């Protein structure tokens, strides 16, 4: 049996996905030490987990140092990396939307959009025929319209509470997001039996 390296996003998604693997019958220890370790070996199942920042998971998978990984659809859309998208795990479901101050229109000359997803935002506005200027931020995106940095923000929305608490309203629903199982193109071929088997088991569980 081939050794499988799985890139996992640190934090809440890791726990959910890990539990999912246990649920589909993988012999994994119930409690994993989630201290500062970045690599977890499970010799019984010939699996090795590497724990990465969620947006870095597709990087590890694209370069083939991880065979498969779990990544958010938002990251996949933003980075456009050469990985195979195998399965929608339907965890951490949310969506990307545009938002702004209530009852405002976008500036007619050069509307500004603040976001940590510059590519997604650019593609969306391009498609609806709106020429915008993108301002890239790394966090606290909601600040931008409040203090006049941008007309709209494009960000991930799960419950809408953050928007509400900052006095913003949602304008357009851009795309749905959830965690996906991704694979490196070479691993997908060279370890095809193992990966297919994992996909089949997870697929049954998810649906």
């Amino acid at each position, binding site marked *: 049996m081939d050794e499988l390296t799985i890139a996992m996003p640190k934090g809440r998604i890791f726990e959910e996905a890990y539990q999912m693997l246990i649920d589909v019958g993988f012999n994994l220890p119930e409690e994993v030490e989630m201290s500062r370790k970045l690599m977890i070996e499970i010799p019984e199942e010939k699996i090795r987990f590497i724990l990465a920042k969620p947006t870095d998971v597709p990087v590890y998978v*694209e*370069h*083939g140092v991880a065979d498969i990984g779990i990544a958010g659809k938002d990251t996949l859309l933003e980075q456009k990396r050469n990985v195979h*998208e195998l399965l929608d795990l339907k965890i951490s479901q949310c969506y990307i939307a545009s938002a702004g101050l209530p009852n405002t229109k976008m500036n007619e000359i050069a509307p500004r959009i603040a976001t940590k997803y510059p590519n997604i935002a650019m593609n969306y506005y391009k498609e609806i025929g709106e020429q915008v200027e993108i301002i890239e931020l790394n966090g606290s995106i909601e600040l931008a319209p409040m203090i006049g940095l941008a007309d709209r923000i494009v960000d991930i929305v799960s419950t809408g509470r953050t928007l509400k608490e900052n006095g913003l309203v949602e304008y357009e629903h851009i795309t749905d997001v959830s965690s996906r199982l991704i694979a490196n*193109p*070479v691993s997908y*071929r060279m370890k095809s039996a193992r990966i297919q088997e994992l996909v089949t088991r997870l697929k049954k569980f998810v649906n």
Partner: protein
Amino acid sequence: MSSLKMFEKPLGMRDTFPVIYEKIETVRQTGREFLRARGYDFIETPSLEYFDTVGKASAISDASLFKLVDSQGNTLVLRPDMTTPIARVATSKLLKEKIPLRLAYFANVFRAQQTEGGRPAEFGQMGIEIIGDSTVFADAEVIITAIRLIQAFGIESFKITIGHAGVLNCILKDYTESDEQASTLRKLLVDRNYVGFEEAVETFHLPKTKSDALLQFINEATTFASIEEIEKYVRKNDALEYMQQLVELINAADLSEYVALDFTLSSHMNYYTGMLFEVFADGSGFELGNGGRYDGLLHHFGSEVGATGFGIRVDRLLEVLPSQEAEDVTVAVIFNDLEYMKALQVANRLREEGKRVTLQSKKGLINEEAFTKQFDQVVYVSQEDLA
């Protein structure tokens, strides 16, 4: 703009240091001997081509082309692949001499990139093209040559996945209700987005039999063990029969263990008209090479003959090559000014024995110990040795 540091190179450009240089040379020699023995003639084309001829026809996207302008105002490109220039030469000149042509190449190609490290913008490519033969035997020859070539490099763990544009198109056409739907699904397969494929099928609201068939097809498509298994999805057609023959020919060569079928294989280029394949090997995270039949490209250059071939990326080949022991024995011959004549003789004698000999004056050395450490043997030429 801050000024450039002396050591900087354009993004994606790499220096080839001696160790890698030797590896590449070995690859070149092994590949050259192997391909010549199979009847392929090597050819070289210019690094620069016109954008309007080769650049536009190439399978490489516009954004990856290095472009420049010549003194007449024509846009030039650094060749982004070898297949397109060879198609140009073949159709304009060579095809008048010999049909079918069997050509081989080992050349650097150029693909610009703006993103990040780990992706060279200039790299070697080795491959073959068979031009002027439309039979399944030419396609089998291409695949078998690819397998044998990879084996010749000493690589054991590799896989070739084969698909056929005709079979895929037939399935997509039969189970969707419009060309638009079929092309949406094809695009998703080019990106290898199986999740997107399933979602798209749901949104089409197809009759249940059709959508079920598509979903089941995508589930099984990369695991078919034989052509018979796909027959339930696709009505009898020439493409399927062609694949059947191709698989039989590969079996006849006793190479089926290296081959897998994948009918989701799809290319963004519409000139891949028939069989196409990808090459993967353990040790690299990226595809080693690819190939297929591209009659459409020849048509673009105004010729109606068939063409098929493959190319392997040398930079990725280096990653998966088994490590080789250096066989050369290196010797340093170190001499004092007065013994130069004798040193020349000693060096020549050692060279005749097949050793790599470095002749070095003792006076020219700054740190003798550090220098001599680099060699397997050190010979000091002194008076007593004179015989």
